[in-house]
């Protein structure tokens, strides 16, 4: 079991959070959707596991490389 950090590839804002802490997710499942340069950018889970923490909420500004969520693999 390891905690995997899910980082933002872009600077932008959080548009929607699609999962909740405790949810079981598969690799590739969309955890949340960011908005940047007028595009919706899905952030996918890099691993299969359980959502351990969500560090942002809708409308939060995020920066490149900011940790958005933790997934327990």
């Amino acid at each position, binding site marked *: 079991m390891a905690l995997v950090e899910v980082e933002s*590839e*872009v*600077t932008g804002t959080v548009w929607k959070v699609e999962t909740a802490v405790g949810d079981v997710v598969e690799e590739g499942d969309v955890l949340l959707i960011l*908005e940047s*340069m*007028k*595009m919706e*950018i*899905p952030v996918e889970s890099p691993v299969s596991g359980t959502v351990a923490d969500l560090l942002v909420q809708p409308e939060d500004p995020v920066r490149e490389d900011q940790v958005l969520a933790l997934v327990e693999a």
Partner: protein
Amino acid sequence: MSWEPEVQELNRRRHLAKQQGGPTGIAKQHARGRLTIRERIDTLLDPGTFQEHGKATATPDYDANDQPTGFVPANYVVGFGAIDGRRVVVGGEDFTLKGGSPNAAGLRKSVYAEHLAVQYKAPLVRMLEGGGGSVKGGARRGTVGEPVFSAPRFRIIADAMGQVPIASIAAGAVAGFPAGRLVASHFSVMTRHTAQILIGGPALVERALGVKLTKDELGGAHIHAKSGIVDNVAEDEADAFAQTRRFLSYLPSHIGERAPRRPCDDSPNRMEPELLTAVPREDNAGFDMRAIVRCVMDADSFFELGAEFGPSQIAGLARLAGQPVGVLANDCRVYAGAMTAQAAQKYRRFVEMCDTFHLPIVNFVDQPGFMIGPEAERAGTIRYGMAAVCAAAQASVPWASIQVHKGFGVATAAHYAPGAYVLAWPSVQSGALPLEGGVAVAFHREIEGAADPAAKRLELEERLRAARSPFPRAESFAVHELIDPRETRPALCEWIEWIQPLLEDLTGTTAFPMRP
């Protein structure tokens, strides 16, 4: 009188030169999970093809009677070999001796590698591991330094990049001059767990800056895949060799030759149904550009370069009807595909590489413009962006652009070269500025004066959007053809046949070769 005694001595020396750092040095190298330079060369090349240059090079020790007492092999190994039956030059430091820091003959051979590749017009593969020069080498008596009239040692490194393909592999700690050699390449790859690339190592950094970091923290794969110092990361040395062989398969052996076209069993007329739905009708929804590229190119032929550096821009090599081509494409999932400073640097270098080796370019355009915002201004984006625009404007290779989605602003000019063959998908939108921001700027008085400004803005956007039908572009011959996306592969494969006579004329030097 026979020369038998000398021949025996020669064979003894050749044997000694192959002993590298001896059993202890070799065992240490293996314990670190790394191959020795001779094992690396044998693994990279077609079996049994290595022909070493300087088989008996060494630093000998002599006793009072001038009899040799010891023999330290040169710690750089270089020679010819074959990859997929084509001649290459391969060279690399022997880390089992002095940590790869060059001894006298080793240094000569390392400089010779570039000369050998240029002289015999063969691609160069460098296997780098070592720390470059050492201060111990500086404390000599008598004449010091190089003669004032000597040619710059780095000239050949620059010249070679305009003559033959160069691939560099970092398979251990690479610091100082070897790190400089690594980036003076058309393709570079590092192993994920056993390589680091450093200008100066941890001891130097701590002394100069008071910062204590490990080699990995300073220059591990996680740092340099993103810095763009290496194009690709390999899982292990075998993967690094496989990627190097693959990279070379798309390129000619030198600029005087055409890139090798292969027979292709993937039909040029293949039409993939999924291309019709690949771009969503909703403006803000992203899509998978790499999937589109893979659908259009010959099956399994797309080899991406530098995916993590400037990730809004995709670059790689592929084949179309067996012809090697350079592929450029925007990834709208990163900043809508905008041209950041890093994406622009990646773009310029890639265009220059294709120009140097006369590889046709196929460009899948979804360009919303240069990246904007405070970070983009601080990064100097517009300068790097214009360098990319200039590289395309002066490109000499056949060029095809497929307008997939967006094409806005000056950055879009980077996607077209002189004589470009231009195809448009029905999903194309283009203009000076994207509608959303553009309407707010151009009609700000009208919008502010309206009873409901937000509704007014939407109304104006909607009216202009309706005027952006793709059909007038086809009517006005502003594109060669508006096509069904499924027709993209057949149209491009046909274009590949049209450009064959052009490729014949292009061999030789270009006005502007690639630089690091």
